[in-house]
């Protein structure tokens, strides 16, 4: 068979504070955005199922943390990002984006307001440098300072329905009172952290920003506390199928510099109602009102063959779009995919059209069905 193994990770790949822990667990490692990361520890399908039914433990220390501080930190972020960050209360977080002047997406972000004049912007690992550069440029001449704090944080996520039960006894925070998209200082396993109720799996869960030196002890405490609840370590492979089932976009797949938030169906992150100008405003106003060129949709495969990133979508055999992400869905038992397709085909497929929609899987048209996003929603 063709060798599926990616090129050996470069020796220069950055190691997270938990690299030795992953090696001890026998993880399969992969290079991702310049970092040496655990792809899986055993079966990625078992890791995925554990997160849906119990809990999983993730090392996300590759994510970028950028501090924006100073008297005009809030105003700077209002100008630099699409969101209305000055309306965010300290202790809360928001999903937002940073766009270029032409409205193209530079990254999707979670921004935590730690204090009136202090924010933490969490960027995708591959985009940390460009986001840092853009924020620095956009903060010029303002009373705000942008600092790369990536090396100062380990990031550990506990995700899954049992997360609160597992984390509760290890923290001084009262988890019942920690709302979704809240984030504030707490202690976990005796170490000072920023504790947030956020995630990228479609499950309840927490993200713990810790000092690098404390990360192994926090990981160990969560592992011990979580074992009776079914918690397992989970790698990037499971993280990708979890976020796909939850219909969450991945930068480089559903988001990119040629796409606007509106293309991805995420126009709600663009806050035209906020005061003042922001980078991309004029272009986004225009592109948000123009007839869409494409629409992000969910597809379910009807064979076992998997639609993957870059494959063509067909309508009556003619090109109608492109797959952005696809994988076998452990929860649904069929392949699922997200794709950008033309709005008229999206409409026609929604109105029925059995047998007309297909994915070109290496030269063979495999039938697919339009399904609403997300593919999976956690039980209330």
């Amino acid at each position, binding site marked *: 068979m063709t*060798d599926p193994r990616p090129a050996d990770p470069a020796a220069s790949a950055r190691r997270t504070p938990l690299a030795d822990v992953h090696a001890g667990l026998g993880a399969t490692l992969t290079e991702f955005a310049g970092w040496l990361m655990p792809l899986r520890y055993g079966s990625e*399908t078992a890791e995925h199922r554990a997160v849906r039914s119990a809990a999983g433990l993730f090392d996300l220390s590759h994510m970028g943390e950028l501090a924006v501080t100073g008297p005009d930190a809030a105003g700077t972020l209002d100008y630099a990002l699409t969101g209305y960050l000055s309306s965010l209360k300290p202790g809360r977080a928001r999903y937002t984006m940073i766009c270029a002047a032409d409205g193209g997406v530079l990254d999707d972000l979670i921004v935590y307001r730690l204090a009136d004049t202090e924010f933490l912007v969490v960027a995708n690992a591959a985009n940390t440098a460009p986001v840092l550069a853009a924020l620095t440029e956009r903060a010029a001449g303002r009373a705000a300072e942008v600092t790369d704090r990536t090396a100062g944080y380990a990031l550990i996520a506990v995700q899954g329905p049992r997360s609160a039960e597992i984390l509760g006894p290890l923290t001084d925070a009262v988890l019942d009172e920690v709302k979704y998209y809240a984030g504030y200082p707490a202690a976990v396993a005796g170490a000072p952290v920023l504790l947030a109720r956020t995630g990228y799996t479609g499950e309840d869960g927490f993200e713990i920003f810790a000092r690098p030196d404390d990360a192994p002890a926090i990981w160990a405490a969560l592992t011990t506390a979580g074992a009776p609840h079914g918690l397992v370590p989970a790698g990037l*492979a499971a993280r*990708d199928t979890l976020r796909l089932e939850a219909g969450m976009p991945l930068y480089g797949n559903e988001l990119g510099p040629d796409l606007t938030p509106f293309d991805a169906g995420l126009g709600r992150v663009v806050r035209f109602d906020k005061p003042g100008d922001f980078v991309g405003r004029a272009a986004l106003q225009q592109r948000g009102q123009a007839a869409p060129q494409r629409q992000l949709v969910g597809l379910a495969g009807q064979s076992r063959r*998997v639609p993957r990133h870059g494959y063509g979508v067909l309508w009556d055999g003619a090109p109608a779009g492109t797959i952005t992400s696809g*994988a*076998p869905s452990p929860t649904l038992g069929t392949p699922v995919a997200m794709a950008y397709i033309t709005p008229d085909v999206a409409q026609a497929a929604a109105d029925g059209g059995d047998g007309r929609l297909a994915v070109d899987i290496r030269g063979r048209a495999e039938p697919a069905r339009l399904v609403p996003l997300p593919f999976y929603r956690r039980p209330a």
Partner: protein
Amino acid sequence: MSVPEELHYTAEHEWVAVSGAIASVGITDHAQRALGDVVFVQAPAPGTRVSAGEACGEVESTKSVSDLFSPVDGEVTEINPELEDDPGLVNSDPYGAGWLFKVSLAGTDGDGDVPPGLLSAAEYTALTAGDES
């Protein structure tokens, strides 16, 4: 990583077990580890003529799809019926219950002679040495 002594191998990570005029084919432990969870195997249908080194099917895992190459010349006689419902057998038992297909070898008198061009266990081990992370 397991590389059974009695089997023969290709550089494309297939294994071959020869019994009389029949060769059983699968993918190696190294291959299944690199793939991750196998979710679908498309093996060549019985009756298909296959040639050594030519693509004859595919193996899908969570993260990737790989072409499957025939390690030998001949005609496919059987595919593993268990894989339809349980492709994970390729992961859990790559040299046993996870076999992929069987080939009636061309140009053999059925005395169990090993087709040309295959690697020994030692040669395959050497090929994949240093490939383990």
